């Protein structure tokens, strides 16, 4: 079993290796790392060219995990993801169906531009993401651990896209916004990517260590009032409750689910360990709250009309909620 010190060592090594390739996206790296450690899936949202795919690919190299990439398109079918039974003939000439695994059977799956697939295809991911298994022709196949889905989507292109349904979104531990890097980071990116030598990340750990790190995260103690704070934060997103703030009542259509609280708790625990602490603090919860809640808050039309984003609502809640 890994101990806290080893946890920090491995985590630091992973981040260091990732930062060799990915420049200026420390917050994204942090959240992705938390997702990987806690076994959660991460939805990366950003315009093309910000290194989302590069990040996931590098991560697979660093973690020495099986990696598969699925480019989601409107004509992508569920069987293209999870696999299908095909007719096969053995050496004796006997024919039978054999399950052909799809790209979902990997430790690290990159669902690129996931919102380009039809809802039917998107839903094919549900069981795999939640139960970490797939069912084909009444047969259930377990996915190898660790299993992570890192999906990306483009926020600008609405034509020919299918927004993820709420149930699908809720499966993601975090939704991380990948922002445009600042000038200094951009200069560094140019220096690293336009030379003759491309930066290469080396392997930092393996899947077994990742699983143990995840188990250690779950053992991190949380004070009762911090747990209560997480619960209060999630409850505060529900406009139907009398205790909800005026802003929530005005702009939020659907509040966060209990999975949001779980995401907050696990994310805060991992954050605490990554910060070198052995207990969860309020600041850990606040650090992961936007990523854990933004895709779980469904805003109404009035919010969109007034330019109110989920992040605005979350920021207001964090500043007003009593610790």
């Amino acid at each position, binding site marked *: 079993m890994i101990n*806290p*010190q080893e946890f920090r060592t491995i985590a630091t090594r992973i981040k260091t290796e990732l930062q060799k390739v990915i420049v200026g996206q420390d917050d994204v790296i942090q959240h992705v790392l938390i997702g990987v450690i806690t076994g959660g899936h991460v939805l990366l949202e950003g315009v093309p060219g910000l290194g989302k795919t590069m990040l996931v690919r590098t991560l697979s190299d660093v973690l020495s995990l099986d990696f598969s990439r699925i480019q989601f398109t409107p004509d992508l079918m569920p069987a293209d993801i999870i696999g299908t039974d095909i007719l096969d003939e053995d050496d004796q000439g006997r024919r039978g169906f054999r399950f052909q695994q799809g790209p979902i059977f990997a430790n690290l799956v990159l669902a690129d531009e996931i919102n380009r697939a039809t809802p039917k295809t998107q839903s094919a991911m549900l069981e795999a993401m939640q139960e970490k298994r797939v069912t084909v022709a009444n047969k259930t196949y377990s996915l190898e651990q660790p299993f992570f889905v890192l999906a990306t989507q483009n926020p600008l292109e609405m034509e020919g896209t299918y927004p993820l349904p709420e149930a699908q979104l809720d499966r993601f531990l975090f939704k991380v916004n990948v922002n445009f890097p600042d000038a200094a980071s951009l200069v560094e990116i140019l220096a690293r990517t336009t030379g003759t030598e491309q930066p290469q990340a080396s392997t930092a750990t393996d899947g077994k260590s990742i699983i143990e790190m995840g188990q*250690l995260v779950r053992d991190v*103690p949380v*004070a*009762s009032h911090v747990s209560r704070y997480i619960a209060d934060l999630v409850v505060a997103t529900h406009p139907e409750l009398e205790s909800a703030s005026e802003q929530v009542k005005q702009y939020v259509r659907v509040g966060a689910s209990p999975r949001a609280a779980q995401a907050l708790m696990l994310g805060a625990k991992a954050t605490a360990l990554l910060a070198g602490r052995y*207990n969860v603090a309020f*600041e850990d919860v606040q650090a992961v709250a936007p990523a854990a809640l933004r895709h779980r808050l469904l805003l109404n039309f009035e919010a969109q009309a007034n330019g109110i984003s989920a992040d605005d609502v979350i920021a207001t809640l964090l500043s007003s909620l009593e*610790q």
Partner: protein
Amino acid sequence: MSVTFQAIQAEYQRLQRRVRLHATLIWAIRGLVLGLTVACGLAIVARLTPLLAQTTVRNLALAIIGAGLSMGLAYGWLRRISPQLLRRQLDRRLGLAERLTTAFELETALPSDLVASQRADTLDALAAVDVQQKLPLRIGRLHPTVLVMTSILLAALLYAPSIQFETVAQNQQVSAEIDEQITELTEIADQIQDIPDLTEEEIAELTEPLEAAIEQLQAQELSPEQAAAVIDQAAQQLQRESGVDSIQQETQALENVGAQLSETPTLEQAADALQSGDLETAASELANADLDTLDAAELDQLADALDAASLNSATGELAESLSAAAEAARSGDAQAAEAALADAADSVAETAESAQQAEAVAEAAAEAQQSAQSAAQAGQPSQQGAGQQAQSNNGQSGNGAGNATDGGQSGSSGQSNAQGQNGGGVGTGSGSGSSDGSDQSGSEAGDQSINQGTAGANGERAYEQIFAPQRIGGGEGIEVEVESDVETTQGNDILAETRSLPDSDETSLVPYNEVFGDYSQAAGQAIENGDVPVGLRGVVRDYFTLLEP
């Protein structure tokens, strides 16, 4: 419980003490401010209503402030907040990132690497805390500001002059003076009871007015004037009950008897004793008179003297005894004359005894009169040093009312009613009585000068003297020789109703009914002009009412 957790607990208790100390400091100041605020309220009430004296308010204010401080200290030190809440506060204030609360919640957790790491991390974080910086024993600006402001306000309320404070002080002084008068009246009643040979009925009759006065003084809240009137009334009644006037007449008559008997050598010693007022000696001499050795001529001379004396005798018994003695002497019966003189001696002895009793009662009445005078002067501003109480008459200068004489008589009434009361300036009173060198002072008119207080706190003002009657209804004062406008003839025959003074053939007394009106009118004018203090106006009026012919 691991050793590490004990170390955390020790650190926690150190922080707890620091927090409690800081809370005590804060609450002490809050208690102080509360005490000051309540004291300000008390001072404001005291300045609006005449309830408490200034000294009392100050003492109460000090007590309230002390109580507030004590309450603040006690509350700050003994105040207990929930340990969970305190740990959460410490986590927040010291930047411990919930380490402390988590460590205490892990107190009973099973040992593990993570728990051990958490405790070690917590202990390191606690040890790294700069307590003096994170938990300074400082207070914000608000508390000292409020403290200073309330202190200044209270000082102003306590030490600034207030008419209510002065009123209360005056009332207290009046009350104390009345209590003193009650004590004095009680002592006077006791003196009356100690007078020898008085019967129970006489004692009851004499002490009744005093007891009634005491009851009135005790039962009611009287003003100085009212108290003085009550006591004065009792004194007058006591004076009347004493019968001192009739005794004086009898004594005077016995003096005249003595004058008549002085011409007989046999009774010369008795005569001298009668003239000097030594009635007991006179009675003894009369009772022991030896007439057996007298011849007929001497007995006739004695009989003439006794007849003349019997005519001047005030009492019937004495006159009869003297007349019987004269008749016996004229008839040559010396023994019968001696027996009659013995009867006369008994009458004189009775008069002597009555005179002693009357004198004692009169003395008690005089003391009561003095009490009335003291009561009338109680609570006067002059006795408080209350300069603000002086009547402001715009520096009106007093008028000396000296009546200079040009007839060689002393300028007796140099009583300068120097009522130089003033508001802003200094009133100057000037008595202008002139004297021709007589050794009689100019204040003999039964006046008592009262020092009208000391200067007030804000200005050294010269206070006028007030001349108040001293012997209203009391014993006789020093006789005053004043100019007489009585016309005399060349042969010194007195035409008006005058009497010669016993020891001075050259002086005369002014007819009373002729001068009374002038003096009474002058006194009334002085009262109307405000020259007489309010507390003494009733006394002056009573004085002239008593003297009214």
